[in-house]
């Protein structure tokens, strides 16, 4: 049994933020949970999937975030509590539906959890999801620690059910992927019965059809719901003030920034000068509460990540209350005290506080920090990101890169989001030349492939992963086929949503909960749409290269599916296909014309250069036995022997 079920009410557990969110949903009696994998959000659905049978929860990895929201909303329309989960980009994907849902309203409590990634620790952007709450006029909550992550989710369901609209909860990487102590509440025993009432009038939110029509009427209702939420916010224990009665400076913050701010105040020892207002209900801001605390002082510092959302909204409130609370001086992002990019930490808050309060702060003696930095810079070689040892992507990009080089027309590759994004870097031989949203590689290629009429002769290749293929590539692929765009799509099929931890997707024969599911065949889908399709194994570089050359000769849309399981996949991990070794009598090192091709260019972490012997060698601990390096060694010094 999973540890998030094992604990009785009142017991204390060390949980990851995402597990705390999942536990909160279970304590709220969630019935339907849907999402699409994306760091830092994935563990929420994974955790719920692990307990779905015991708790009778329907859990799915949806094909994309928009569908996840729709699946969750169906649960809500049928009277059940439902959850949808995604990273920040996902809210963009789902926002089209969300706009309509927010006006329509919900029935069973519905909570949208968006996990943002300030500093882009594992993203290709540090976009904010909070603005959707304001733009689409739905309540927003932001937990500040692990206990709140659990408690706030439960409260969000109650609030949603009370106001009959979706409630958004925003987490961040440093909360979702951090762990802390959480005291459990009770798991409810509720009867879960789904029924969709649709027989009433369109004006009846509980018995009628679900729609945003008539729009102006429903929009007005939506704004009334927000006012109801604000009334609850005014009393919420998720907003709390600590500090002196008349502080010199009021620091307003929320989310993980609360922990940074609290620590910064303690590092500087200014507890008697700075008041800390932690806000958990961050949109719309509760005006009475804010007026009370803005009245404490005339200096305000707002600490948040990334762009000034809270800060701007507080400034609007300050303007509204100006007659009663007097003019305020703000120290925030607009004023340059807090950066508008990257993630926050205690040191950044210390730096802002030191400037405002004219304090000196030295974490360690400067002589020490300078010396440590100097030694580290010279003594710790940097670690560029790399594909793992035995990663099929390294093999795929090796061949794609070489084929384009040999073709000689300066062809290029358009990519998107996945581990294969690393092909922008030397580990993928700098093969990727565009990198944007999920599915954008094939979309851009569709456009590039129509530029022949303007003299463009460069071969155009797009790459997409197998999970991304279903998530967002299909409409662009249909577009490219319909418009006869002359491009080659390479599907890097590694049998899973590998980057985020092998979640299932529609191309696999299992679903999120491990049950058998009908797999949708990428090859057949492409063939049915009229594409020329070939399949190859990236660990067979010669065959793959030959196939690519053949496809370049064919006009129109071609698909090459490169099929090889991720080296870290549970099925493959720890099992070597080949025993790989270097024949030191054959490897002639620097006298070989290859100029250390294996370690200098191919650069698999499983290879090493033996400086003394001047030969290549295999690192036994790291090599996973894919055998690809044996295929690229021009002198045949790297040998592979099939493991029986």
């Amino acid at each position: 049994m999973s540890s998030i079920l094992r604990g009785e009410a009142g017991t204390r557990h060390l949980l990851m933020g995402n597990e705390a969110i999942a536990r909160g949903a279970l304590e709220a009696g969630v019935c339907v949970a849907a999402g699409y994998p994306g760091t830092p959000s994935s563990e929420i659905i994974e955790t719920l999937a692990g307990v779905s049978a015991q708790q009778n929860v329907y859990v799915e990895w949806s094909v994309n975030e928009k569908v996840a929201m729709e699946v969750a909303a169906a649960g809500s329309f049928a009277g059940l509590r439902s959850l949808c989960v995604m990273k920040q980009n996902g809210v963009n994907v789902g926002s089209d539906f969300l706009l309509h849902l927010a006006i329509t309203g919900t029935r069973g409590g519905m909570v949208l959890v968006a996990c943002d990634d300030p500093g882009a620790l594992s993203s290709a952007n540090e976009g904010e999801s909070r603005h959707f709450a304001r733009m689409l006029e739905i309540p927003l909550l932001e937990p500040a620690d692990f206990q709140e992550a659990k408690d706030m989710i439960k409260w969000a369901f109650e609030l949603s059910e009370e106001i009959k609209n979706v409630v958004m909860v925003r987490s961040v990487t440093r909360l979702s992927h951090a762990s802390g102590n959480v005291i459990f509440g009770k798991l409810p025993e509720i009867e879960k019965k789904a029924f969709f009432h649709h027989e009433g009038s369109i004006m009846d939110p509980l018995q009628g059809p679900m729609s945003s029509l008539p729009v102006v009427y429903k929009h007005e209702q939506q704004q009334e719901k927000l006012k109801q939420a604000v009334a609850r916010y005014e009393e919420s224990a998720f907003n709390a003030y600590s500090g002196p009665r008349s502080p010199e400076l009021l620091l307003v913050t929320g989310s993980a920034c609360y922990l940074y701010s609290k620590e910064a105040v303690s590092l500087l020892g200014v507890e008697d000068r700075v008041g800390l207002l932690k806000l958990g209900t961050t949109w719309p801001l509760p005006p009475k509460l804010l007026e009370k605390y803005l009245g404490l002082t005339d200096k305000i510092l707002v600490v948040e990540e990334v762009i000034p959302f809270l800060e701007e909204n507080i400034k609007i409130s300050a303007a509204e209350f100006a007659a009663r609370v007097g003019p305020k001086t703000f120290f925030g992002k607009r004023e340059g005290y807090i950066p508008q990019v990257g993630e926050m930490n205690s040191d950044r808050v210390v730096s802002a506080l030191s400037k405002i309060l004219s304090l000196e702060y030295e974490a360690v003696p400067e002589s020490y920090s300078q010396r440590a930095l100097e030694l580290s810079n010279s003594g710790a070689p940097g670690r560029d990101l790399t594909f793992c040892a035995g990663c099929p992507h390294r093999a795929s990009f090796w061949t794609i890169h070489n084929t384009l080089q040999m073709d000689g027309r300066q062809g290029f590759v358009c990519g998107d989001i996945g581990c294969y994004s690393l092909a922008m870097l030397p580990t993928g031989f700098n093969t990727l030349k565009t990198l944007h949203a999920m599915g954008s590689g094939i979309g851009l290629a569709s456009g590039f492939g129509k530029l022949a009429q303007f003299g463009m002769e460069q071969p155009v290749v797009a790459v997409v992963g197998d999970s991304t293929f279903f998530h967002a590539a299909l409409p662009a692929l249909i577009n490219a086929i319909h418009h006869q765009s002359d491009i080659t799509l390479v599907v890097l099929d590694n049998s899973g949503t590998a980057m985020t931890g092998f979640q299932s997707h529609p191309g696999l024969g299992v679903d999120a909960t491990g049950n058998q599911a009908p797999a949708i065949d990428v090859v057949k889908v492409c063939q049915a749409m009229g594409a020329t399709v070939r399949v190859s194994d990236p660990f067979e570089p010669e065959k793959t290269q030959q196939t690519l050359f053949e496809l370049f000769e064919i006009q129109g849309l071609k698909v090459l599916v490169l099929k090889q399981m991720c080296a870290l996949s549970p099925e493959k991990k720890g099992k070597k296909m080949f025993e790989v070794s270097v024949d030191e009598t054959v490897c002639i090192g620097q006298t070989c014309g290859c100029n250390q091709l294996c370690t200098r260019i191919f650069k698999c972490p499983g290879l090493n250069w033996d400086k003394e012997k001047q030969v290549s060698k295999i690192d036994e601990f790291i090599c996973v036995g894919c055998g690809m390096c044996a295929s690229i060694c021009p002198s045949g010094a790297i040998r592979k022997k099939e493991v029986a």
Partner: protein
Amino acid sequence: MNRMNLPFDPYNVIITGVGGQGNVMASRIVGNMLSRKGLSVTIGETFGASQRGGSVMSHLRISTGSSWSPQIPNGKCHLIISLEPTEAMRVLATYGNPNVKVLCNTRPIHAIGVISGDQQYPDLDEITAWVAELSEAFWFLDATEKAMELGNPILGNIMMIGAAAGIGVLPLDRKDFEAALAENLSADKLELNLKAYDLGVGMVQ
């Protein structure tokens, strides 16, 4: 609940290594052991594609109070557990101070810049001298090599945890280690892990 006296509150530990070495798991075990003692534990970490082959850190904040921020402030680390020698240097540069203690596994993992010959990996003697200069106390342990003798290099991480218990700065004990592991491991694997833990304790005593 058994409340402990900590040398500092919060006591800050960084477990560092290279993506794939298993430091996330190591930090969970240590966190779980201390949480069992009734201490408040906050662990900050990052994972995902951006860590492939890169440096990976877990920040542990151990306190008799409440949750601390998931990132240790600059210069405020008390104990570094480094699963790889040069990673100890990298952590010292940002989080080190003259009173920091360092436990370091001696087995190097070469970055691709080193494999390709673009960068040089320093000699272990050099690294040892640098760590000595920048720390109050340090232990260099051949954990991976010893773990290979037990049949699995990953047990090196368990030896490092044993070593952390052995130096006696934190209320880490064998019973909690056993309990933390028993949740997820079969009996035979548990025994091997306990052996590795004991070897780790022995390495610093």
